[in-house]
């Protein structure tokens, strides 16, 4: 029977697991935690809480898998308007390193209409092979036809790893593909690596909605699938001398159940993802009214305004300003954070910033771990003083 197991030899009886259990499934009895299997949701929160590593989730012995027959790393190279998206090259950059570590081939999957010319840049970007689906069914990025083409190609070639960019389309397509293939999918990985001993893909992402990272494995199902946010991985320097093979995928018919009637370019919202200077505010800014001062500082510096997720949840700011795991990844020359505590999700979005100045009242706030300059103080006071200091010049 699968479930949560306590190793009585390792357990020190400290009770930390009992305190952290959100469902009351752990009780201390005779100085040892006892699991009530009827209440345990196997959420796993107690496992990192245990300093003695006495807790583990026991799984059924897996059915013999054909995992060993699969090989190769695939990257879904999303294109738009006849150009691969930057995230395609970022995935190829990371994929190249993984493929070299495993000693296998790196393949880009390219779907579109009239996109044959894009195979060459993908090869220059690191691919050994491009699987090219060039058909009217792929003129628009629609999930059903693309899922069909990807799943058929996977069935034919059996890759071991399949990666997608976490764009709006990638986040919609990848789970569809994973469900059809009956395999696991890890969303928004910030780090991908290969385990030397097992050859498995180590998929690392922020977890538990808080200040922890989790490394996730897909041990038996294939392919091992993950999405990666744009801007997280680094592309290779394109090498036009690289050679690779281009393989045409069989035609896929369009799926008539979904029809694109019209598309209008989204009103050009200046994206903070490209901003050189960002002033970002978190809950510590105090009130909605204080955001006006944040805007003033950003304007003064010729920069953009970013916010942490709580401000978007409160309705103080638009989602388009949200920095972090579920918002945008930013890479400014200068980032000034005001009252941002720095949850892992937020930190995941600011890794590319060159200089970070963080202001927070709490000297232990996790934001300081990502900062170059640490300012412990009330963000409103510091902000007001900073505006005055800049005005004096």
């Amino acid at each position, binding site marked *: 029977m699968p479930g949560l197991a306590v190793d009585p030899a390792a357990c020190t009886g400290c009770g930390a697991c009992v*305190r952290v259990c959100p469902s009351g499934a752990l009780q201390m009895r005779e100085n040892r935690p006892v699991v009530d299997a009827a209440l345990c949701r*196997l959420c796993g*929160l107690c496992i*990192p*809480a245990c*300093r003695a590593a006495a807790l583990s*989730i026991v799984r059924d012995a897996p059915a013999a898998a054909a995992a060993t027959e699969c090989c190769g790393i695939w990257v879904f190279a999303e294109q738009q308007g006849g150009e691969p998206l930057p995230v395609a090259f970022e995935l190829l950059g990371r994929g190249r390193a993984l493929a070299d570590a495993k000693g296998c081939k790196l393949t880009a999957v390219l779907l579109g209409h009239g996109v044959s010319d894009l195979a060459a840049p993908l090869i220059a970007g690191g691919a050994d092979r491009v699987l090219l689906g060039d058909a009217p069914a792929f003129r628009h990025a629609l*999930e*059903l036809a693309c899922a069909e083409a990807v799943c058929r190609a996977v069935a034919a070639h059996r890759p071991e790893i399949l990666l997608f960019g976490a764009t709006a*389309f990638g*986040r*919609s*397509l*990848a*789970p*569809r593909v*994973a*469900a059809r293939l*009956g395999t*696991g*999918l890890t*969303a*928004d990985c910030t780090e991908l690596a290969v385990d030397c001993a097992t050859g498995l893909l180590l*998929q690392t992402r*922020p*977890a538990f*909605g*808080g*200040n*922890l990272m989790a*490394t996730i494995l*897909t*041990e038996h199902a294939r392919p091992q699938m993950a999405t990666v946010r744009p801007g997280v991985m680094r592309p290779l320097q394109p090498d036009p001398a690289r050679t690779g093979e281009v393989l045409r995928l069989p035609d896929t018919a369009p799926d008539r159940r*979904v*029809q694109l*009637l*019209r*598309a209008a370019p989204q009103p050009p919202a200046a994206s903070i993802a490209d901003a050189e200077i960002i002033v970002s505010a978190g809950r510590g800014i105090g009130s909605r009214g204080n955001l006006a001062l944040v805007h003033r500082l950003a304007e*003064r*510096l010729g*920069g953009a305004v970013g916010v942490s997720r709580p401000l978007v949840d409160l309705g103080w700011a638009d*989602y388009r300003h949200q920095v972090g*795991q*579920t918002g945008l990844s930013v890479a400014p020359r200068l980032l000034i954070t005001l009252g941002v505590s720095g949850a*892992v*999700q937020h930190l995941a979005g600011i890794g590319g910033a*060159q*200089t970070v*100045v963080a*202001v927070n009242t709490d000297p232990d706030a996790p934001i300081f771990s990502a*900062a*170059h300059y*640490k*300012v*412990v*103080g009330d963000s409103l006071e510091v902000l007001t*003083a*900073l505006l005055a*200091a800049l005005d004096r*010049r």
Partner: protein
Amino acid sequence: MRIVVCVKQVPGSSEVRLDPVTHTIVREGAAAILNPFDAFAVELAVQLGEAHADVETVALSMGIPAAADLLRDVVARGIGRGVLLSDRAFAGADTLATSYTLARGIEALGGAGLVLCGKMATDGDTGQIGPELAEHLGIPHVTDVCAVPELVGGYVRVRRQTDTEIQELRVRLPALLCVCKDINDPRMPSLRGIRGSLAADIARWNCADLAADPARCGLSGSPTQVKRTFLPQRRSLAVTLGGGADEQAEAIAAVIREVGACRD
């Protein structure tokens, strides 16, 4: 037509803090709530139910028995009835096993013309359940639906926000839609709704009721597993800019000048 809205109970606060002394995690005690993103899907289902006389609305959730309260709350907001999928065999599910279980639930209901989901859950942050559920049901899906969809004949017309454009799509029913935040203004439960919901019969179905394969549910049906959890890597120690607010401001101004960020 039956509209099924999928809802999830999440911790009221997603804050998990690290005890600075013991280095163990401390979960701030907060009651479980309706996943905030799901509130928009619930409101949409209620509105479609009000606009179309032949629409029946059902809220579906997978969770512990206590999640029945969540479904009662959703009924108080105007949903017709609630069904809770609850079984020990469902525990420890990743998105593949969860979406499989929800799909069996929808089939046990007799299917759905339209399935509605929120953008994602605040505790998992994956946004994968909607597309995976649609795949298990063999129906098309649209994510990032950013305007109230129109039901016309056997179709639904939807608008979705992609990374670069707004698309208008015509989708044949049955279909699944994942709706954006702020697509509508979710109502709070009315007094009458609350009174009605107290008497509402929240059905509770287990694995056998769904004729689901236990090997595809919960931990057994989850291909992904957490190998380890750890603290994020720390950058080298930051330089502290000390003093009062004015001194700190001067020091920040100096950093701004240094990186050449001042517009003068």
